[in-house]
């Protein structure tokens, strides 16, 4: 197979699910979700590493099949195949066509994020994936899922904002936005501390590391099973992958940032483990939280000690792949249970555990969100932002769908994170 043909397959991998996501098309095809996975199967079986660059696309984006991809592709295929197979059960009582559209859009975004050869491509596909996943979360019209989805989308926006700023910094330092070039350029750039802060803040929020894990725990507890089995492989794994690809690991030492990351990772690891032991149910969810904590703990280590990266690097892709597949398979049984049981992926009492309470107290806008309410999924309290909006405008007639409290909280966490990293990273 020639390089060009391989390149075509590469693009087809992304374009094919995108095309299929048009309702008029997928409603006329048998097995549209499985069909969408065909090109990626072909790609998985291809022996070559290949790249196709399209200079007229956006700022010159491209897709590439790099050496570390087989693991991730394998995870991708397994997880999505399982999801596709379980789709019928999921789609009971929902608008199947719409759910399929979101399913395929998320799939395309996920694949694109994996295969993107540069930062912009990663960002673009991650955005597609993120918002489509939001649609997938809400495809079944469940009240509890709605609030979770709100938390998720706020985290998504806030994270994307940070990443966008990071992108700008990267583009300011390097003309070429491919991963290696950016890493090289940022290592020497004076804007590195800010870049580091932005990237870490963005991906921490998106990966659901403590203290931004609210959306993740809420999602594990409330969203319907299909998006739940995709959680680890889709938003979380991609955010972790992004952390590795965007940052100039091994080239720079950012000791303090590293320590902070280690502390956050450790906190997540410990609190999740303790709660797991106490609850004795929901192994899939808790283990996933533990793995996230561990990942960032180790990644913090490489920031403190760059040479450590060499020993970690080969295991990143397998780590992510195993996390994604394991979480998916462990959560699979919940698909077959009814709703009440399915909601029990995590123990229901965890909303009141120590770190979360601590955080609620620490929050500058404590009033803005009552923690337990937020996590069990009722409307958040009257918020400062809404008050602000009312004060600024004459008529604040209608209620925003995304409660201001979530916004206020997310933005606060986000700003604190950025400040923290920016202050320490240098």
């Amino acid at each position, binding site marked *: 197979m020639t390089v060009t043909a391989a390149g075509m397959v590469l693009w087809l991998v992304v374009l094919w699910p995108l095309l299929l996501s048009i309702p008029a098309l997928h409603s006329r095809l048998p097995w549209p979700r499985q069909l969408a996975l065909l090109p990626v199967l072909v790609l998985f079986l291809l022996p070559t590493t290949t790249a196709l660059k399209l200079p007229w696309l956006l*700022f010159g984006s491209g897709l590439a099949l790099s050496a570390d991809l087989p693991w991730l592709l394998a995870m991708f295929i397994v997880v999505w195949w399982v999801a596709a197979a379980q789709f019928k059960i999921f789609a009971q009582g929902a608008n199947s066509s719409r759910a399929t559209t979101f399913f395929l859009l998320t799939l395309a975004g996920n694949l694109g994020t994996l295969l993107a050869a540069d930062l912009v491509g990663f960002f673009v596909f991650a955005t597609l994936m993120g918002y489509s996943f939001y649609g997938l979360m809400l495809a079944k019209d469940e009240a509890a899922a709605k609030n979770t989805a709100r938390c998720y989308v706020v985290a998504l*926006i806030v994270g994307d904002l940070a990443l966008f700023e990071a992108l700008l910094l990267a*583009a300011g330092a390097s003309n070429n936005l491919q991963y290696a070039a950016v890493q090289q350029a940022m290592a020497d750039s004076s804007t590195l501390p800010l870049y580091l802060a932005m990237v870490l803040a963005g991906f921490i929020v998106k990966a659901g590391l403590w203290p931004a894990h609210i959306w993740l725990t809420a999602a594990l507890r409330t969203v319907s099973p299909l998006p739940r089995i995709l959680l680890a492989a889709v938003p979380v794994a991609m955010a972790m992958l992004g952390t590795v690809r965007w940052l100039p690991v091994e080239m720079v030492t950012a000791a303090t940032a590293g320590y902070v990351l280690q502390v956050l990772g450790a906190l997540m690891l410990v609190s999740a483990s303790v709660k797991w032991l106490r609850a004795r149910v929901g192994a899939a969810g808790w283990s996933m939280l533990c793995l996230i904590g561990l990942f960032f703990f180790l990644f913090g280590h490489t920031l403190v000690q760059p040479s450590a990266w060499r020993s970690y690097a080969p295991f990143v892709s397998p780590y992510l792949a195993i996390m994604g597949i394991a979480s998916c398979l462990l959560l699979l049984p919940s698909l077959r249970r009814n709703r009440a049981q399915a909601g029990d992926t995590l123990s229901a009492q965890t909303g009141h555990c120590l770190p979360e309470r601590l955080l609620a107290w620490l929050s500058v806008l404590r009033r803005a969100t009552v923690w337990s309410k937020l996590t069990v999924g009722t409307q958040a309290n009257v918020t400062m932002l809404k008050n602000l909006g009312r004060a600024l405008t004459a008529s604040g007639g209608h209620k925003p769908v995304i409660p201001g409290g979530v916004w206020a909280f997310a*933005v606060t966490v986000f700003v604190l994170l950025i400040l923290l990293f920016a202050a320490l990273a240098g």
Partner: protein
Amino acid sequence: MNWDAAIPLLVVASSLLPGLVIFTLAEERVYLRTFLNLAGAVIKLGLVVWMIWGVYHQHHYEIRLALLPNLDLVLRAGPLALLFVTLSSLLWLVTTVYAVGYLEGSPHRSRFFGFFSLCVTSTVGVALAGNLITFLLFYELLTLSTYPLVVHRGTEEARRAGRSYLVYTMFGGGLLLLATVWLYTLTGTLEFTPQGFVQQVLATHRPALIVIFALFIAGLGVKAALVPLHGWLPKAMVAPAPVSALLHAVAVVKAGAFGIVRIVYDVFGVEAAAHLGVINPLAWLAAFTILYGSVRALSQNDLKRRLAFSTVSQVSYITLGVAIIGPIASIGGIVHLVHQGLMKITLFFCAGNLAETLGIHKISEMHGVGRRMPWTMTAFTIGAFGMIGAPPVAGFVSKWYLGLGALQAGQGWVVIVLALSSLLNAMYFLPILHAAWFRAPPDHWPAEHDFGHKETAWALLLPPVITAVIAVAVGLLASAPFSPLDWARLIAQREFYQP
């Protein structure tokens, strides 16, 4: 005969003549009127494409007509002019189709389409104007030809909006006239020149030039809806949807923003403006407008009003891009001229569709509307994501260049403003999308029209879908030749790199 010279004139005439003929047509001659409209629009677009090709091959399109001794009416097709002309003629074609569908069966259509054509004629004139007096001429003509469109419905509310529009724009026009004459008495020329023409009097007339610049910005700021001169825009949303589209995306607001671009680049020149110390205040004003518009948009329950405040915010991106010194930010500002137009026209078309098909005017009535009108709401979603700046929709490219340019110019605060604006955009657009897609539709819509099994009439559905596709395409294919970004690069290059 020199055809190169005649083409700019033909571009203007291609909507003027049909417009004048349409005025004389009887109300019931729908087909002839539609044919004239569409023929004019298609011919104009063809001529514009021809000019793009020509300018790319170093042709020079210019026509002069003596207006006063030493002062000509000049129509010239430079790169910046072409960018705006292309946008206007393309969107005019789309809007015409939309308007034909939207106004079907309503009274005074000949009058409407007559002024509609005049409005586009003046916009094209504004774009092609080669000097300030030509610009002024078409700019005022635009005011006059838009007023009848704003008050078209003839209700008390519409007339109030029209009065407000007139008060603001006449006031702005007066300031613009004053600034223009004053500048002329100082410099003796009004010809748009890359990097400006005020250098020779820069040393001698510094205070006067500062005041003139302020007058220009105040005069143009009315149409560009800079705070505190934006008051007319939210009121003017009582106009029919195609008019709103025209106001917000194609003609009026754009003409104001385009004027600011012209003033900063081709009258004062960035260097002179920076030397006068006026460019930073302009940037602050633009930044404030961006945030103010977004914050106000948050609390609007009327869909079109929310979109109007969104325009206040978004159009100032253009001003902001111009007011940050440096080629990259300029690219962002100039390209947003096109991008904002594409996205906002999509949003207004969709708002019009909702109102025409289901009688929905308020956001609180939009629950589940995505299920009833999936195509319309898909277009709306694309437009909204573009406004937020999500890739790969066009808005992302604008924001990218603005942010990058600000960083390069050492104006980090702009990036924070952009981030805040994105956040606010998300806060007022996402709830709409959420409600439209994920909430249960009501038992019956406020005022549903029956279009058979289609979601709405073809003439209403196609335009937003087309503009949404273009909005994605210009973002996705930003680096392709002849993309808006490509042209914006060319323009910025002319402003910043040539000796």
